[in-house]
């Protein structure tokens, strides 16, 4: 089931609009100021202080990869594309740039608040998923080590199940993950090259 949306704190949050001076910028600035954000405008590139911004609105029509001071597609904050030309190439580019939500131009009286909430939610979800995937990957990589550690422990007359339980107890005692405990056992055995010391 989907988790409930977290309403972000927007009072005093910082937004940067990366767009040339234009009535769309004025309309967006008015909306964001009414919501309570502090807004700056920047063009043709993001100023260095944009790294501290909480939200970036960027022009999808004139945009190019060099306009962001971070690796392409890895923004450190939620990004909202300002789309005028709904051409597939531009939509594709804004997705690759890492946009989490979009607003259609010309921007008028509304749309900014839902874009902020949707972008924040998508950004947080993406970050949480990336962290979860990295953790799963690490554990997957450790699978072979776990098998080796269980085999080493079982070599001393334990059943596989008992060895597995012992490994879990060690991980708990050492306050490290199961995989890390396995790696420690395998490493100590490799170091000692067959010495009979207990782990």
């Amino acid at each position, binding site marked *: 089931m989907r988790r409930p949306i977290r*309403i972000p*704190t*927007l*009072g*005093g949050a910082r937004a940067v609009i990366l767009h040339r001076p234009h009535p769309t910028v004025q*309309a967006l600035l*008015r*909306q964001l*100021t*009414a*919501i*309570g*954000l502090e807004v700056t405008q920047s063009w043709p590139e993001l100023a260095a202080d944009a790294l501290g911004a909480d939200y970036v609105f960027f022009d999808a029509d004139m945009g190019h990869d060099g306009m962001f001071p971070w690796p392409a597609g890895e923004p450190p904050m939620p990004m909202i594309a300002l789309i005028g030309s709904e051409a597939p190439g531009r939509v594709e580019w804004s997705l690759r740039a890492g946009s989490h939500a979009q607003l259609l131009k010309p921007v*008028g*009286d*509304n749309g900014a*608040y839902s874009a902020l909430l949707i972008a924040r939610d998508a950004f947080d979800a993406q970050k949480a998923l990336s962290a979860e995937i990295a953790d799963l990957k690490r554990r997957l990589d450790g699978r072979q080590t776990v098998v080796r550690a269980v085999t080493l422990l079982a070599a001393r007359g334990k059943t596989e199940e008992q060895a597995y339980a012992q490994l879990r107890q060690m991980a708990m005692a050492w306050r490290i993950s199961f995989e890390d405990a396995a790696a420690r056992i395998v490493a100590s055995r490799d170091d000692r090259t067959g010495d009979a010391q207990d782990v």
Partner: protein
Amino acid sequence: MTKRRIEIGLLYSRSGSYSLISEACRSGALAAIAELNADPDLDLSFVPVERDPGGNADAYGTLCDEILSQTGARHVIGCVTSWSRKEVIPTLERHGATLWYAVPYEGWEASDHVVYTHACPNQHLLPLLDWVMPAHGRRAYLTGSNYIWGWEMNRLARERITQAGGEILGERYLPIGSRDVGRMVDEIRASRPDFVLNSLIGPSSYEFLAAYRDLGRADPDFAPSRRPVLSCNMTECELPALGTAAEGLVAAGPYFRGIDGWPGKGRFGSSHEAAAHVAVHELARLLAHRPGAELLPLSQLLAEAGGGIVDPETHHTVLPALIARVEGGAFRLVHRREAVAGDPYLTRTSQSPATPTLRVVS
């Protein structure tokens, strides 16, 4: 002084489920127009152009367009439900026109084409919850009509009550106009909440309050003094429809008859009347002695005139939060919170919820 004749729109439903509120707003606006037209020092007079959507939400956009297309009016005083207000905003935007909205609403809006002269949640719901939880407890039952006002009020109430360590015992909605309140009352009787937040409107609300009065008569445990019903939109204008069912109801609002605090001058029948009245007066202040200003968009009008009651960023106003209980057919002040600026996105003011307190268990 020669008076410029300036047409202004009035868009209120004179029939339908919330007509009592419409009539209160309308009479506040008309009274203000009459005062301004009689003022010899003012260089303008307002000519009201009226349209009546008859309580049909889909008629508002069309009729607003009619006012703006067929007459010279660029300012419209009107709308009661948020549903109707959201219907007219695209029309206002197209014509560069302005709506003056004189009814409490659920917030999360700051249109460039609307001025909000009544309260939003930091001026009604939050002060009301801050008062009720220490006074009556934190176990709540939430009701509402099935549209944005009820939904968003109850969402915010749920958030604040649970943050304060409270509990939501039930939440139920009725279609606008429905009188089918039996199930709500059954659930309340079974769950015994410390208070009921009532965001029903019109006949649904009248029926519910009558049924709750009957429940209180049958079982004193449900007396309103013990488990009150709360409202953020109930004013004097609906008391005639409620009769004794209103007794004990606790409402939040910026004005109640006979209680000081309303920022403008004058005595009004209700806060709905007061908010429509102040809207027309503020419009006159913005246009006075500035020929042609009646054609300007709101943003420019506010920027050039300066001062006044309308916050140029949010288009909301500064209002006190009064909490009052119906006793003997009139509202009596229970609690007063000093005037605070409307904060539609709850981003500007400190919004710390009521903190949980320890209770003596014996």
